């Protein structure tokens, strides 16, 4: 191998425009750019900066932002606004998420769009406010009683935080569902380079909406997986919203096949959209080893993979940007020919590895985990073997 020349910065004339921003700033900016019109928050490290930016800037841009007296109120206010037809968002960390869970279920049951930026910090209970972690994969993915999937997205850079926030809103509105942007302290609060000209244009928010003719049936869908049309409470069509088991008209029913059809549909519309919701950024093909990671741990993984390649190992790198529904289609393709899968995440025991395990067949699963500190590239390099 010839020695690689020392890297040098791009000369000024060919440099893209660059700015510095945190993940939180990019999340807030993306939310406003894509059409979030209501934000309610409650301070909590490391998500507070989203709350601060939104309260400062969203009202300037014609939206509304509120300081709630707790996270229970913050999410309930968002859902009230969304039921009125307004794209809404809140941001929190583990302790606040714990308080929001009741209303996450309500959003699922009532098919109310909302985006929750969930910035993970370390440990149970109050934990360590300024400690980084990726320990809430289980907490967010298993939050809804009855066992319902809510889309959970992840971002490993400030730039990706922008992109995934756009996508979170697009999905929430189109599928009428809560969407969690599962960020982590490191990505949310680290300041880094972003390239404004390389950000995607915000997608249109397309909440399927009833416009007549005929009587509005708030929970009626045609084919399984189809999203029922929305109508705003306060608009011209009579709306019946309910968190109770209901039929197509929103009426409380017991032992009614339509109720069970609705309950199945709530899962089907998300799980069935797996292929289109799944996003796995795959770098490298034909390798026998695949490193899978997300959020902050993808960053160290990229370095470890580069190092392994420099040493002649064939390794592919998959940065998961959709965690749930599990991006089965993309993963099955990525796993083709792979014998060894290294799953890197900053928690005890590998929460996402446990989710992936059933997909891996007889491939070897290597978990690289950590607690209370960043997983270093050398640890991952070791896992690659």
């Amino acid at each position: 191998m010839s020695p690689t020349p020392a890297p040098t910065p791009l000369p000024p004339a060919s440099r893209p425009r660059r700015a510095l921003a945190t993940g939180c700033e990019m999340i807030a900016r993306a939310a406003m750019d894509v059409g979030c019109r209501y934000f309610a928050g409650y301070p909590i490290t490391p998500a507070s900066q989203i709350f601060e930016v939104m309260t400062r800037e969203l009202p300037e841009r014609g939206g509304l932002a509120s300081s709630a007296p707790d996270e229970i109120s913050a999410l309930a206010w968002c859902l009230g606004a969304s039921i009125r037809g307004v794209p809404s968002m809140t941001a929190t960390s583990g302790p606040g998420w714990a308080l929001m869970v009741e209303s996450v279920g309500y959003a699922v049951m009532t098919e109310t769009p909302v985006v929750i930026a969930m910035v993970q910090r370390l440990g149970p209970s109050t934990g360590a406010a300024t400690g980084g972690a990726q320990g809430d994969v289980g907490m967010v993915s298993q939050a809804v009683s009855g066992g319902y999937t809510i889309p959970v997205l992840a971002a490993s850079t400030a730039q990706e935080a922008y992109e995934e926030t756009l996508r979170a809103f697009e999905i929430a509105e189109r599928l009428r569902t809560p969407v969690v942007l599962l960020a982590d302290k490191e990505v949310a609060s680290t300041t880094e380079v972003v390239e404004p000209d390389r950000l995607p244009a915000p997608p249109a928010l397309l909440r399927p909406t009833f416009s007549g003719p005929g009587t509005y049936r708030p929970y009626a869908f045609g084919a399984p997986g189809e999203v029922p049309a929305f109508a705003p409470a306060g608009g011209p069509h009579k709306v019946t919203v309910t968190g109770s088991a209901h039929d197509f008209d929103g009426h409380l029913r017991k032992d009614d096949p339509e109720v069970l059809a609705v309950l199945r549909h709530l899962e089907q519309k998300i799980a069935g959209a797996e292929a289109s919701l799944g996003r796995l950024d795959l770098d490298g093909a034909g390798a026998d080893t695949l490193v899978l990671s997300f959020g902050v741990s993808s960053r160290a993984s990229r370095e470890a993979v580069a190092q392994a390649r420099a040493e002649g190992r064939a390794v592919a790198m998959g940065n998961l940007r959709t965690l749930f529904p599990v991006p089965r289609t993309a993963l099955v393709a990525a796993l083709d020919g792979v014998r060894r899968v290294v799953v890197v995440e900053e928690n005890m025991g590998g929460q996402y590895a446990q989710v992936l395990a059933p997909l891996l067949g007889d491939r070897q699963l290597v978990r690289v985990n950590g607690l209370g500190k960043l997983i270093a590239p050398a640890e991952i390099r070791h896992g690659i073997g």
Partner: protein
Amino acid sequence: MASAEILPLLRGELPYCKGCGHGQAARALSQALEATGLPTEQLCLVSDIGCVGLIDALLPTLHTVHTTHGRSTAFAQGLHMADAVLHGGRTKVIVVIGDGGATIGLLHLVAAAQANVDVTVVLHNNHLYGMTGGQGSGMTPADWITTTTRGGNPFPPLDMMGILRASGATHLGRYVATDPRLPEHLRAAIEHPGFACVEVLELCTAFGVKFNAMNARKLKDLAELTGQPLGELATPARPSFAEAWRQHAPAPAPPRPFQPIAPTGTAALDRPLRLVVAGTAGEGVQTAASLLAQAAVGQGLFATRKNDNLVTQGSGYSLSEVVLSPEVVHFTGIGVPDLVIATSQDGLKRTAKAVAAMGAGGLVIVDEGLDGLPGTAARVLRLPLRKLAGARSAALAGLALALKETGAFAPAHLLAQARTSLGEGGAAAVSAVEAWVGA
């Protein structure tokens, strides 16, 4: 959804027990809504959980939002705020909640009263949790027997109207369910433009009456016994949420653009430089690190910066971890740093372990007045950072010197960035650092 042709609003058979106050309150509410003459498409009923929550099915022409236990007021507040600010305030929002809902969701009532949102809460107080079997609630009268207070309730009931008055509600009243004027009182509350709550005293025939030998007459006495008077309560007038928002909302402005960093040249740095700058909170450590990152980007480098301090934010150590590199920075961890700058005792204490681990290629710049520098293989420069630049610019001085020593890029770019960003206030300090580093 025109209202005239579909009166009465209340439809179908009432699902309540015979004599249940919920039925009386529901009838009164329906009459009150009819009397307002508001079209049903502008009425949104937000109902809570419990027997009280069965009401949405009885008012099928209104918009109805049946929520979770105690949260009705919070959903209503969000709906109202969005309606008032973003949809011109065309919707009247009415909450129907029980005494149980009022206590499990107490903060939502308090918050709605405080914000004076145009939401009318009809609190159906049957003095216990009806739907779940007559357990005692926070509004159960003292000495009452319920399925969970067999020996009599040891506590006095919460005075919900008192709580809401203290929270800033602008329209409050307490009436018995059998009051023939209840529809009028409810109509006044609905037409009130701020937060209103009407507490309707009721008897749960299934449980309240069963254990406590109550009847409608005694219900009135009960109100006197608890010291919670009937009638409208005096409340001060103040701006509604919508008015207060209009007064306090900022002027419309276009989206704030990115602040791209103008190229200033090309750095010489050809490999990652991982550094920690540490000092005491309030002494400009994080600002200096931020200036460094900006200057580095101007020089074509990639930069990441992470701050750390005690949870109290304003005391103890303060530090920044910065990685500069000619290539994209993936891993932001520092491990053993290439460079440590400590400007205060707090900062040195925080970085001592890292300093001790540093190898021969490393550089440590510490203020000369600090004690406790550990043994290290790194090159150490003890300098009068604080004396020369002042405590608040010691970190900037240390970073400027570090740039000179490492040759990453010319310190002049950091100082130019400092001059622009710090303005007048920082000019003297920047000049002092400049003179010193140049020397």
